[in-house]
């Protein structure tokens, strides 16, 4: 009888651990909707665990170590320097710009790096990156991004929106969730 109880308990534990593994499987979603003439639409969603499986394929094509923002290249080593300064600082607002085109605000709050851009013509950018993700992304050696660490960090950060961009031509959303979502505008 005792043996049966042990077997039942073991089977239950295995079933529970499998169930838990499935339940914690997170998905990263990328959705881009263009509102111009072609109305292009891209919807990608993959389990984060699967991304790590695919990493060996993209590692062969690792980038040059620069990040291009709005046509300007920034060296990753330089980014690391800035990040080290922000990371060790207290929560607060670090950059506030008000000009003719937009209001920009960069802040660190509750383990999140927040970037808000409000363009006067209606465009809006919201970036909400957990510190762990930036740490992982910039934690590589030399001038490379540590993609492995980035994927590991994505698997452990809180679920929700990471990036949303809305302007008159396009809508971009990157978020983490615990389930696949139906594609937007799913009509054929």
């Amino acid at each position: 009888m005792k043996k049966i109880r042990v077997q039942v308990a073991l089977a239950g534990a295995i079933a529970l651990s499998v169930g838990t593994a499935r339940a914690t499987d997170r998905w990263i979603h990328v959705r881009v909707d263009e509102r111009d003439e072609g109305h292009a639409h891209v919807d990608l969603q993959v389990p984060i665990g699967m991304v790590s499986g695919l990493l060996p394929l993209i590692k062969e094509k690792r980038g040059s170590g620069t990040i291009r923002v709005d046509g300007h290249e920034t060296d990753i080593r330089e980014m690391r320097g800035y990040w080290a300064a922000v990371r060790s600082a207290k929560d607060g607002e670090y950059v506030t710009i008000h000009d003719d085109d937009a209001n920009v605000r960069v802040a660190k709050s509750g383990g999140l790096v927040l970037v808000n851009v409000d363009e006067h013509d209606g465009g809006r950018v919201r970036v909400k990156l957990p510190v762990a993700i930036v740490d992982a992304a910039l934690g590589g050696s030399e001038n490379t991004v540590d993609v492995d660490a980035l994927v590991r960090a994505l698997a452990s950060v809180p679920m929700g929106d990471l990036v949303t961009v809305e302007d008159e031509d396009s809508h971009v959303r990157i978020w983490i969730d615990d389930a696949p979502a139906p594609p937007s505008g799913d009509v054929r």
Partner: protein
Amino acid sequence: MSRGERLAFAIVLTIGVLVTGTAGAAAYAWHRSGSVRLAVHEPGDDGLDLALTLPGAIVNAAIALCPLPADLALDPQLDAILPALRATADRLADLPDAVLVDVRDDGEHVRIEKVGREIVVSVHARDGRFEVALPVESLRRIVSKLESRQGRAIAAR
């Protein structure tokens, strides 16, 4: 019932159980292995219109029996991508139904989705429609075949 009748009854019953069991197992294996579907439709009078459905069991048998081309130039590339292919194929088997990729642009539509035990790739364009469905199990068998071939290639080096 005489002894001979009992013996005959036992033989008939055994054969019945064997036939039913084998048929049931075959039907289950047939159902479980899914099917490979290929559909191509091109508009116009001379456009291609093809719809092909093959039972997964036959495709799996073909994967097991057909020799792979002995193209040694592939080996270094396979070494690099096989673990990723294996991990992806195994992962696909556990995924719930989901649209993994959905791209629409200028009247064209490409979709990759997991449906049941199959991966379905569909392309809808102005110049035709193309759809292929492949059981995840067949994909895993292809990867296993490549792995075994790669193992032999490494041993031969």
